[in-house]
């Protein structure tokens, strides 16, 4: 499944079956739109989950979420699920909660800089250091620490994030640019028609000669239908909370 599979569908809808040659919409325009639509689809549907473990440090309760995760669904420490909470509950429920120490049992995301989590109570132990090389080891610049992808590693007493994955390169770095020959990973083949509608919605609503409100709205409707069905598949199978469905 390649980016060119989406491109072919878009070209036939633009009446350019041999490829975008008229100049009204170019291949670069297509790839830019695809680069917007594909991460949006993955983030909103949550079809692909990634499991990333990072080291816990003595006395540090706030940790940066790596860019490989767009939305945190759950946090585990030593493989144990942490309760999701918020600052209001902590403020009202626990006197001087920031001073409490121990093995973390809850986490919150609000009241913090973007894409950070804070563990509660504050850990007062040093988890196992993440290996600096090996399969699945990454070094996200935003966390400035080695992390490892793929399992929960319970004996390490570190924290594990489970969340919606963004498009990744084979070396697990975040993919930001696309070519027609790139493969589309992380989503099933059945999602390709919906990606083509998403790109079509962008092209038909762009301020160019290709602008067409009716086509754009239809494509947008079909793209939203795709987001809704995949989101529902992920949410409705077993989860009691669709907003944080795993």
């Amino acid at each position: 499944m390649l980016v060119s599979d989406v491109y072919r569908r878009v070209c036939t809808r633009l009446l350019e079956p041999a490829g975008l040659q008229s100049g009204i919409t170019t291949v670069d325009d297509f790839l830019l739109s695809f680069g917007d639509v594909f991460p949006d689809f993955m983030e909103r549907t949550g079809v692909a989950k990634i499991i990333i473990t990072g080291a816990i440090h003595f006395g540090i309760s706030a940790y940066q979420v790596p860019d490989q995760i767009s939305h945190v669904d759950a946090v585990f420490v030593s493989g144990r699920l942490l309760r999701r909470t918020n600052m209001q509950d902590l403020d009202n429920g626990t006197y001087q909660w920031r001073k409490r120490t121990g093995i973390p049992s809850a986490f919150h995301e609000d009241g913090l800089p973007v894409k950070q989590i804070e563990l509660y109570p504050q850990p007062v132990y040093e988890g196992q250091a993440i290996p600096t090389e090996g399969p699945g080891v990454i070094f996200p610049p935003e966390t400035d620490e080695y992390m490892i992808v793929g399992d929960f590693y319970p004996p390490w007493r570190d924290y594990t994030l489970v969340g919606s994955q963004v498009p990744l390169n084979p070396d697990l770095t975040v993919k930001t640019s696309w070519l027609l020959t790139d493969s589309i990973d992380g989503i099933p083949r059945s999602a390709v028609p919906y990606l083509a509608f998403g790109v079509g919605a962008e092209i038909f609503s762009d301020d160019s000669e290709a602008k067409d409100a009716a086509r754009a709205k239809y494509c947008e409707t079909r793209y939203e239908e795709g987001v809704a069905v995949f989101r529902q598949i992920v949410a409705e199978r077993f989860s009691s909370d669709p907003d944080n469905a795993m």
Partner: protein
Amino acid sequence: MPSVTLGQVLTEVYSRLDNNTALYPRQDVVDEVNDAIQVINLLTGAIQTRVQMFTGVVNRDPSNPPLTAPQLIYQVTDPIIFPVSMQYEGRELSGMSLDELASQYRSWAIDVSLPGGRPVKDWAPIGLDKFVIHPMDGRGGRSLIVTGVCEPTELVNDADLVPLPNDDVSTIEDLVGSVLPMREGGHIFAAAVAELYTSFTVKMKSKAAWANMKWPQYYEKLIGWKPYTPREAKIPNAS
């Protein structure tokens, strides 16, 4: 049992497109039919298959490379899109969400099934194509039969059978008939969408496997089409 062929679907679709093979070449129509089958399959979960996998042992501690442990996380294999049920050694496993599993069993990530001990009894999906079993199988090499919704086989020849129930064939025709006129645009496209996409959504709302799915709002205002409602009939005429 499916008995409608691709050729029959194409004939019906072309009759809605004034048999215009110049604007709608056969391959384009076949591609849209295949896309429509994928979409309807996602909505209804009609096409399912079983795949046999085996439990395994993996290295779960990169800091100690020779150390192997029972495998916790599995990935479904092609052509399954997502699993709906599974059997371990012929026994049905109980499905639950990962948060339910982790809440119910504090040590779920290290629990191991050994001979004479607790048997493998639960599974939980992680996203679409990953899942965990609980407890992990301590022996490895045991049969895990995964049933799931799978990717439909692409139709190529006129004699190929549509892999959906016969009463879904008209839904395929509705969907294809609403997409293809996009290349004509204007009134023809608007009319096709108003009639056929609406028909598709009405049929799918009653058949979709996902009862709580939120269908996108459609664009009545843009194309000037609006379903008749009794409430409108009660609005007095301004004149």
